[in-house]
């Protein structure tokens, strides 16, 4: 355990700091913004699409190609849909202000 922590120090520091940043970012948000915030965060985890692009770009057999293609499409849905929906929500909030 101790050796594991010592060996992956950098990573653990990174992890802790990131978690901390995520928590801090949310802790002072007014509740009307909860839904757009959730939606924005939803779009951001669409970054998983990068994994699907890599997988797809290295795929060799047909099954991998098909699965990879589906993964890319779904990931794009997450990213594009996520950001667009968030933008639409926020547009509502700003209206004529």
């Amino acid at each position: 355990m101790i050796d594991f922590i010592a060996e992956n120090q950098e990573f653990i520091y990174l992890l802790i700091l990131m978690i901390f940043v995520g928590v801090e970012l949310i802790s002072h948000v007014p509740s009307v913004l909860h839904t757009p915030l959730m939606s924005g965060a939803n779009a951001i985890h669409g970054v998983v699409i990068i994994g699907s692009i890599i997988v797809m770009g290295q795929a060799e057999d047909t099954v991998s190609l098909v699965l990879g293609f589906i993964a890319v499409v779904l990931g794009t849905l997450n990213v594009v849909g996520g950001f667009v929906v968030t933008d639409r929500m926020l547009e509502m909030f700003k209206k004529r202000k």
Partner: protein
Amino acid sequence: MNILYVLYLIASLTFILGLKMLGSPKTARRGNLIAAFGMALAIFGTIFLYEDEHGAHLGNLPLIFGGLVLGTGIGWLMAKRVKMTAMPQMVSFFNGMGGACAALISLIEYRHLTQHTHGGLSGILNSADSEMLTRLAIMYAGLIIGSISFSGSIIAYGKLEGKIKDKMLPGQQVINIGLFLGIVLLAVLNVAGILTSESLLYAVAGLALLYGVLFVMPIGGADMPVVISLLNSFTGIAAAFGGFLYDNKVMLIGGILVGSAGTLLTIVMCQAMNRSLLNVLIGNFGGAATGSGSGEGPQGTVKSINASDAAILMKYAKKVIIVPGYGLAVAQAQHVVHELEELLEAEGVEVKYAIHPVAGRMPGHMNVLLAESNVDYDKLVEMEDINPEFPTCDVVVVIGANDVVNPAAKTDPASPIYGMPILEVEDARQVIVMKRSMSSGYAGIENELFYRDKTSMLFGDAKKMLTELVNELKSMD
């Protein structure tokens, strides 16, 4: 490749910055665009600059672009077409897609790993090569979490669309916990080399999908926003495991940020409703079949009023405050209420809307709903700011709201909503409550407000009654 690392760094920064800016009304929209920009950088950077260990670039570019274009087209259309009030299920759907993407990545990498290792899965397990075993464990983690997130989100989507009803099997909690432990156990035994079947991973994927369904199924439809937020953070974690797998910093940062921010957001949403997360997940408070909160209901008589009397009251008032609630959204009465507001303003009545933070079924529900009918943003007043105004208000019109004006939250420590801040409509001279019956709202409890002397009930569907009010007002001139 080095340029790609720099792009990833920039993208990570835009994610952090974007999330931060999303937290404040003034900067939220720009924050979203900044994060989207960073995402585009990361995606196109990966396509063109990624190199594997041997320095080879990515292949299959036409197919990749095909996928991107297809996904963009569908996503764009869906997001643009969806009705404002159906936003939460849309978010849930997109979240599910992200989860599925994460799960698929694990699947493909698993196939890749077993095909390219001598002896397949057994070869990997026997080699006791700790790096390979770690990769296998990460794949399992991404697969399980992604699958749960996918199927759970789809169920949540169905519930919000009204296509799936709440359903609770007998002993469901026990089944759920058992299933979850089973899934984890199978994965652990596989990585530990005790179970060695190559198709085990597919079985685990199936079980995880099942678990997602069973997890969300019994939770009340009204609690879906909380569940979606939780599944959102799950997908974040699944994405982070992807980052782990590829040692890819931007996936790691994006995933962990969303994982931790999403978890906190879930907790904060529960707090705003004065409940704990556990209570939402296993409690039956928001479920279909609940008894009323505290034993006996309040005693007393209920005064009812008709539309024409109510119209007269409002017409001759100086100041009217409208309290919209879930019922307004159900009745889709946002346009009529705006018409009423304009008629009253034309008569010289000051009209405002009192927005409770958890009115409706998702945070900001009332804002989104009323914005759709072009209600002036300045007329929407938050709870803390409007509460001091009730004493100077002649008529409060409560439209399809119930819990958010329930005085039990202040007076009855036994009430499940005790401690939740409410709109103090009782301070006004006169309260008109518009709803279809005496039945309770989300929390399933009685509301003494309806029995007060000041209160008059205007029974009926919100849209119908509002239309009547509008007609009465028009005919009076």
